[in-house]
């Protein structure tokens, strides 16, 4: 670089330029091992709402036998890891006053009473199985509706969330199947919505109710499904506020079937 160019920039960027002048550095590429991650999770007390590295598959057998119990409506064991992450309250406190944040990220439900000090390690497939068994009774689509669906929506997870779903509509009835949604243990719940957009703007929305184990919903009289274009699943705090929290987890376009 010529002296002129150099001196003009140095006044503002001298620090960076001194570092760059040392020449190219090797960017570190070695990743920390899974052991380090396990230590991090342990240090946080396991309250991370994330899948941990699979320890060994013997857990799977134990979980399978407990899925049956849980699906029969047995109260899920109190979550020993839920000394609640109310520190989140301080996060919300530091967020702008306009924040309409009404949710906390759900943590995996501890429906299995393992040794409470042992972190439960589960591969993704098992989480899905547990969630689907407990969150929603898998409805045989089409049969439940007594005929072919007229509209359907495939729901995909929004960035940062997991899960997927399918919703099928016939007349004013809806049958839905979702998988992969973690079950909140803090009273928050999932809610199903129909959305209507005009261009990019939300023009209207209607709640079809809580998602709480039954896969069938009724679209209220007077609501014309054809006017709505999107099916949405949100996570809501149990605070009595009926409006949409703004935190959508799954969403998909509503389409006519053939």
């Amino acid at each position, binding site marked *: *670089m010529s002296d002129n160019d150099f001196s003009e920039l140095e006044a503002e960027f001298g620090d*960076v330029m001194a570092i760059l002048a040392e020449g190219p550095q090797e960017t570190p590429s070695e990743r920390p091992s899974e052991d380090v991650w396990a230590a991090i999770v342990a240090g946080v007390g396991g309250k991370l709402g994330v899948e941990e590295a699979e320890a060994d598959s013997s857990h799977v057998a134990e979980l399978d036998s407990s899925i049956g119990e849980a699906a029969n409506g047995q109260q899920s064991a109190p979550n020993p890891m839920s000394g609640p992450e109310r520190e989140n309250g301080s996060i919300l406190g530091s967020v702008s006053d306009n924040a309409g944040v009404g949710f906390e*990220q759900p943590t995996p439900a501890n429906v299995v009473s393992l040794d409470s000090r042992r972190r439960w390690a589960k591969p993704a497939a098992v989480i899905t199985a547990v969630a689907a068994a407990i969150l929603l009774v898998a409805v045989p689509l089409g049969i439940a509706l007594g005929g072919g669906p007229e509209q359907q929506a495939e729901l995909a997870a929004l960035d940062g969330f997991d899960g997927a779903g399918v919703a099928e509509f016939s007349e004013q009835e809806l049958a839905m199947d979702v998988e992969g949604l973690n079950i909140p243990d803090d009273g928050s719940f999932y809610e199903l919505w129909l959305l209507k957009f005009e261009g990019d703007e939300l023009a209207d929305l209607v709640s079809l109710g809580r998602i709480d184990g039954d896969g069938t919903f009724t679209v209220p009289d007077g609501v014309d499904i054809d006017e709505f274009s999107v099916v949405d699943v949100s996570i809501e705090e149990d605070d009595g506020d009926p409006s949409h929290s703004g935190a959508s987890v799954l969403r998909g376009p509503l389409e006519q079937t053939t």
Partner: protein
Amino acid sequence: MSTLAPTYAARSAPAVTVQGKSYPWGVLATLEDRLVIGDETVLRDIFDEHGSLVLGISRKLVGADAEDLVQQVFLAAWKGRARFDPSKGSLAAWLSGITRFKAIDHLRAKGRRPSTPTAELEDMDPVEPAVDRVVDRMLISAALETLPPARREVVELGFFAELSHPEIAERLDLPLGTVKSHMRRGLEALQRELGGSRV
């Protein structure tokens, strides 16, 4: 059967506001946003994205204790997530700053000598500026890789190949003004990274 009377909420969808930025419909895309909002699943993603930077800095500063330091840094980052201010700098810069802080603590506890001597720090006294240099170098090196390609190329040609602006313009077949603009923007971004590790 779940049936509710229709709940027609406000005509405009309630947006989530995080530090003055509005996100309609809970679409929180960046790691920074998810950290601020307290999304518990973000820590693993941050570990995947920035773990190698933190480990790389740690290796140079504390040698064999690097993995311990990485763990401490991520724990501190999680516990201190409410203090992360995206407007002050990037996540990488913030994590580098925490790494620097924890490394200095570690080195002080060990009597200002790393457990395994590393070339950068042996016989360097006081410790802090030496640590700063290591952190800064790694942070800038990682940040260079995130620059838009045109800016990165101009900065590298100017500093690593030591070309002048006119020489860069000729090499890349770009107008001189464009080269100057790329250089300035590139340096601005990198300088901001340095600042971000000092908060």
